[in-house]
């Protein structure tokens, strides 16, 4: 008697009725889309996310966490909304030679963080946050980064950039000069020139490398061109993930650590204002990651090392360590999703929203008016 071993397909009769439960693609026009705020807009005719309104037959607008609980950013010590626009220029002083020295101190420390509501992860961090501080400098400056290792494990900081091998943060290189692998309780000052301009990253390079990166030891490193870039609303997105059960694949994906954070707190931007995204992929265990924005296109500057965009697109793919500067403007008010177009990552946390203007004011008339103002929109609203 082996019903459990039956080849069920073979015996399945004709009955294949598809349950009419799924409003799969109904996108959402109201923010706070993941948590309690994800309740349907009362009377909204947009087929949107009534997904938690009544027990039982909820709509499924998009992947989301369970309602009623959010990540405790205070306990984490950082909030991804603040991480987004937090550029750390360090402290500066003039050297005797007249050059500018820009200096930071990064403390490697072990720190438990919440990567999804209720899901804790024993992270290894720079300055208690994941990603580490976004270090920003100008091309040609002298940089000094003091690493203090107060973690229980040896660490380094390996910068992407151009520098001598002693400053490379590689174990086995320069230990006799105090560099190489920095043991717990020790410290080291990395010193090099800010070059080339572009968007780079830094991370720990102690073996096992995958484990040290996956635990959270990474951050963005921006070198501005001498003449700067055009004025813009700038933000950093570090694409990462967390292997919470240590099976060498990630359970939670995100930008700036907390899954679905920018669904719960959409990124507020102004209509028609230039938005510049510094996008860095440090995701461990998965070969590729990607970025896609809805209802818009962006200029793509790979590695940010050229001032000329390479492509006008709405989706880019990046391997680990690859990074790009993206520039775009939103011509319409509303909420616009952005996510990895590796849909699996998107549904495991790597999804967010840009909120342009005040969506509560966004009615059909406003949208029509906004459309008409576009060069191809045909002038005044009908």
């Amino acid at each position, binding site marked *: *008697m082996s*019903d459990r071993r*039956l080849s069920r397909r073979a*015996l399945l009769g004709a009955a294949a009725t598809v349950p*009419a439960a799924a409003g799969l693609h109904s996108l959402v026009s109201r923010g706070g889309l993941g948590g309690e705020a994800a309740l349907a807009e009362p009377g909204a005719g947009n087929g949107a996310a009534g*997904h938690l309104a009544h027990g039982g*037959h909820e709509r499924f607008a998009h992947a*989301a966490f*369970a309602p009623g609980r959010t990540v405790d950013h205070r306990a984490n010590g950082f909030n991804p909304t603040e991480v987004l626009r937090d550029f750390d220029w360090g402290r500066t002083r003039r050297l005797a030679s007249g050059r500018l020295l820009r200096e930071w101190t990064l403390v490697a420390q072990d720190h438990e963080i919440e990567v999804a509501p209720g899901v804790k992860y024993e992270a290894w961090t720079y300055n208690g946050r994941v990603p580490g501080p976004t270090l920003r400098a100008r091309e040609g400056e002298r940089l000094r980064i003091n690493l203090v290792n107060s973690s229980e494990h040896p660490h380094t900081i390996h910068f992407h950039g151009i520098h001598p091998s002693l400053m490379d943060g590689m174990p086995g290189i320069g230990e006799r000069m105090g560099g190489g692998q920095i043991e717990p309780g020790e410290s080291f000052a990395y010193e090099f020139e800010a070059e080339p301009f572009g968007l780079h990253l830094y991370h720990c390079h102690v073996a096992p490398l995958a484990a040290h990166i996956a635990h959270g030891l990474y951050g963005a490193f921006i070198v501005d061109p001498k003449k700067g870039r055009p004025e813009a609303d700038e933000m950093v997105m570090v694409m990462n993930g967390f292997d919470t059960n240590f099976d060498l694949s990630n359970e939670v994906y995100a930008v700036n650590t907390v899954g679905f954070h920018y669904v719960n707190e959409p990124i507020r931007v102004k209509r028609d204002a230039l938005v510049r995204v510094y996008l860095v992929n440090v995701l461990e265990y998965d070969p590729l990651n990607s970025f896609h924005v809805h209802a818009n296109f962006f200029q793509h500057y790979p590695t940010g090392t050229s001032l000329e965009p390479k492509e006008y697109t709405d989706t880019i793919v990046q391997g680990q360590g690859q990074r790009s500067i993206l520039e775009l403007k939103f011509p319409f008010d509303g909420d616009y999703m952005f996510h990895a177009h590796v849909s699996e990552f998107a549904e495991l946390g790597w999804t967010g929203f840009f909120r342009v203007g005040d969506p509560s004011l966004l009615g059909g008339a406003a949208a029509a008016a906004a459309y008409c103002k576009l060069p191809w929109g045909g002038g005044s609203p009908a």
Partner: protein
Amino acid sequence: MEAAARAVSPRGGLPAWALGLIPLALIGALIGAFALLGGPGLGERTGPPVEKVSVEQTVLRPGTIELTLRNDGPDPVEVAQVAVNDAFAPFSADGGREIGRLGSATLRISYPWIEGEAYEVRVLTSAGGTVDAEIPVATETPAADLDFYGLMALLGIYVGVIPVGLGMLWLPFVRRVGPTWIAALMAFTVGLLAFLAIDAALEGLEIAADAPAAFGGAALVFAGALVAYLVLAGVDAYLRARGEVSAGTGGAAASGGLYLALLVALGIGLHNLGEGLAIGSAYATGALALGAFLVVGFAIHNTTEGLAIVAPLRGGGATGARPGLGRLLGLGLLAGAPAVLGAWIGAAAFDPSLAALLFGVGVGAIARVIVQIAPSMRDGDGRYLHPVSVAAMIAGIAALYVTGLLVTV
């Protein structure tokens, strides 16, 4: 030593029951003190909390997947998030998200699952651990209403009662044949029952693998078998002591043909209880499609069980009584009807631990029945294993194996 001990006890003046209670009281006091002092000398526990959670039940409703989890480990577990096929999905938890030791919780997950597709539900705990539940083929779990119980009853009748009844139609044949044929039929029954016992044991162990280890898991199968065997042996001894069964050392008739038939029916009935349980739960979870082919397979498979029941009813002999139609019907129901009961239990409240136990009970009952009817297959020289019995036993095993193929597909 012995003598000294006996000499002392009357002088102590304590009654025997007090002497029996003193160690118990001391153990109680020790446990109390140990708990009050917080386990002196054991120190802090090392290592992270142990998370062991098993999935007891999966129920699919339109747009919803319900998982019943049982915390099988020593530490409380907190359910933090749930992902279905690599997508986080909103859910609510009956009884809270924290599951204490041996506690259970039911997660109601919103997910637009599609009929016929496969799903993996991944529960993420607060410590980042994962519990996976597989849904091999998604289909809506039938609502447990009257229609459903009716269907389960019909199913039980199809696979249990009717085939057993059909098998009993061999009774006239059994009555006509000579003693060698009877020995062969009994040996055939023994072979058949042995195969059923093995099958039930394997089935029970397989289910036990999914059951929470804290409740015993595979041990439940063996415990169930042992208890069933002992209970049946006890009942047998009791009936013999009251003289209701002639102490038989001879053939089937001598040990009471009807009594033996009753035992066989009981053993098969307990086995069919487990079988019904498995069918009911498989049907409820959509793992079983009720094709006519499957029902026919079960019918042929179980028809042999009917033959096993009537084999001892040769009539004549020491008891001489030819059981009436009512008694025959009773035997058939005893063997077949538990399939209905099992299907109800399995469909409404399937619990892997209970199922493992019941399969074990079936195994024990069958083992006892084999012991009971084995004497009937002896030949004139009193040998258990003679060419006819051996061939018949192998035929019994083969019969179930071959008809079993019809339901394994």
